[in-house]
């Protein structure tokens, strides 16, 4: 009887065999990519959002709950970007390891100084992010800090491999710093763009270009024809160098604006894997800067 009971419990996956890879869940592709840099083959990364999906519009699906149930750690973007599913995933997972008071609860935005933190929040402004602009993954320095934090947390959860994670984080940092030198000379200073969504502000801040208007009148709210007319007028003044759109967003409006103004549409990946040749984080930033320059 006792043996059947133990067999039953084992069958239900209650015991994790020793020496197994750490199970790590990442919400967004860029988080998964950086985790792979640091964890290498010592961790198994499950990503919850596909690069083709709009990161704002994700629902907690059973498969995601299941992944969270088995996770040793959950890494997410934070700043309320995943508010529609991460809290529910954590609750439904029944997994003590990823509860907010545990090291397995890794909010990447902890390492970031958010920009555009609103002074007051009113939904008349659209689906604003009350904690600031959550799309900080376009900032390589921010991601560098996060990668150091990841190495520390992975080491804490898996002390036997702590030195390995540390070494990988240092190697990643070295590669990123080398890339930053080539990125620093990309001529973006003073350029002006119109963007579909409030997504590229960290990039603009770092590389000295401005975003002079948005296709969306307010975050998450598609434009009316009246709004587009106003935008077209403002573009006569600002004379932007391009219209930035993400692969997941509607391109109809941008194409219309482009036809009216002659300003070219620039497809900018919003995450790792969203367009070809963005297989990892460094390639992603590289592609973004190549596209925008």
């Amino acid at each position, binding site marked *: 009887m006792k043996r059947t009971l133990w067999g039953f*419990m084992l069958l*239900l*996956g*209650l015991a994790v065999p020793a020496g197994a890879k750490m199970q790590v869940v990442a919400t967004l592709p860029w988080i998964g990519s950086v985790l792979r840099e640091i964890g290498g083959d010592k961790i198994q990364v499950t*990503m*919850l*959002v*596909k690069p*083709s*999906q*709009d990161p704002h*519009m994700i*629902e*907690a*699906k*059973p*498969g995601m*709950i*299941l992944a969270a*149930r*088995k996770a040793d750690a959950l890494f997410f973007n934070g700043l*309320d970007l995943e*508010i*529609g*599913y991460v*809290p*529910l995933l954590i*609750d*439904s*997972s*029944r*997994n*003590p390891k990823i*509860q*907010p*008071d545990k090291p397995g609860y890794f909010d990447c935005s902890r390492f970031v100084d958010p920009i555009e*933190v609103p002074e*007051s*929040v009113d*939904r008349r402004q*659209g*689906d604003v992010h*009350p*904690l600031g602009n959550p799309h900080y993954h376009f900032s390589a320095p921010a991601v560098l800090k996060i990668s150091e934090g990841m190495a520390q947390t992975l080491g804490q959860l898996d002390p036997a491999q702590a030195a390995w994670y540390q070494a990988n984080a240092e190697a990643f940092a070295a590669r990123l710093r080398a890339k930053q030198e080539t990125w620093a000379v990309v001529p973006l200073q003073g350029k002006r763009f119109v963007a579909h969504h409030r997504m590229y502000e960290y990039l603009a801040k770092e590389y000295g270009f401005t975003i002079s208007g948005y296709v969306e009148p307010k975050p*998450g*709210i*598609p434009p009316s024809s009246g709004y587009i007319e106003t935008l077209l007028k403002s573009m006569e003044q600002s004379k932007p160098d391009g219209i930035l759109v993400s692969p*997941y*967003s*509607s391109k109809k409006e941008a194409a219309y604006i482009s036809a009216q103004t002659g300003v070219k549409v620039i497809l900018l990946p919003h995450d790792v894997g969203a367009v070809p040749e963005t297989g990892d984080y460094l390639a992603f930033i590289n592609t973004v800067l190549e596209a925008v320059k």
Partner: protein
Amino acid sequence: MRFALKTILPVAVLLLSSLSARAAAPGLTMNPDLSVILDGYVYYDHFNATDEDGAHVFSEIAGFEAGHHHEGEETHAHEPADGFNWRHAELNFSGSVDPFFKAWVIAAISPEGAELEVAQIETLELPLGLKVKTGKFFSDFGRLNAQHSHQWPFITAPMVNQLFFGHHGINDLGLQVSYLAGLPFYLELGLEGFETGGEENSLAYLGEPPLPKFNSPRTGVAWLKAGPDLGLEHSLLAGASFIQGVRQEEHDGDENGAADHWLSGWAQVAGADLVYKYDDPAPMGKNDIVVEAEYYVRHVRMQIYRHDLAAEMAGAYLQKLQDGLYAQAIYGLWPQWRIGLRFDHLGSLNRVEYPDGSAATFDPTRRTTFMADWSFSEFSRLRWEGSYGEYALADGNVNGWSCGMQIDISLGVHGAHKF
């Protein structure tokens, strides 16, 4: 769980004070998170061969009719009634109590008063994939039962849910233990015990003399939900549910205002549910698909406990064997726009055996409902709905149509909805 209107006042004060306290940055202020859901609609229906409105037609469906007045059951105007309807304003408070518990309170305020819909506490850190929930909560029986009315893709509820479980569904004081297995596929199991299971559904309990008393929990529920892992775009989840509980009725056969015969027994409902979702990469819900269906069979068996008009009837049985299903599909036609179609079919099985030894089999009832909705943003939505149905009533079949328009709004930090 019904409160006087004056209980709204302290709730409103609490609401306003928390709103001002958390104006700066919701995620950073202290618990609880707060939201308000407003759900109102305008509705019209018309039935030929009867002057009655929809609410009345639904209560007269052959084999399902309430018949006489049931003591202890409340009847309130949650049925769609012609004209403007205010389903309710729902105040939603939730938050972590400490590292070990999470709590929710949902108060539904309607013109008739305030009602405590949910007051539940659940564990956060139990090992082995276990979770324990207690308080007043919605049962996870089937699919629709645990969803709040503003989550429904249609204005009206499916008829099988409405007739088997009433307008509030299976919602009562109770305890739930659930388990999520760590297998390669999704498997969640749950057991629940309730005081009775609800106010106006298959599980009515009176417990007043001359009817026998039963100790709580009088209703038990078991369910499982399982689905394969189909990746990030497709999801499939199937469920099986069972509920059994005490059912008692009190009738006034000679209509003199006093009860004269009493029945006591049980009701069982068993069934299955299925949901498939496809999340297309196109923006704002375009091309997304949701297909859902639930099927239930109900068996009611009650004995006449006492009969003051015909004492010899005592001990005879009343039995009902009935089923019902709905199947619906929702499709994202354009960004922000969805259309949907639902079929209700009630009473393919619809047999009643009466205590006097006679039996009857009734016709099925069918309804087809179409809807379209438009989301202005994630927080507000307009919906249109129209239906045509053939209803088998106790005194003849009628057909009729209905139409409605709804506005559904959520204010504040609203927690994510379950899959």
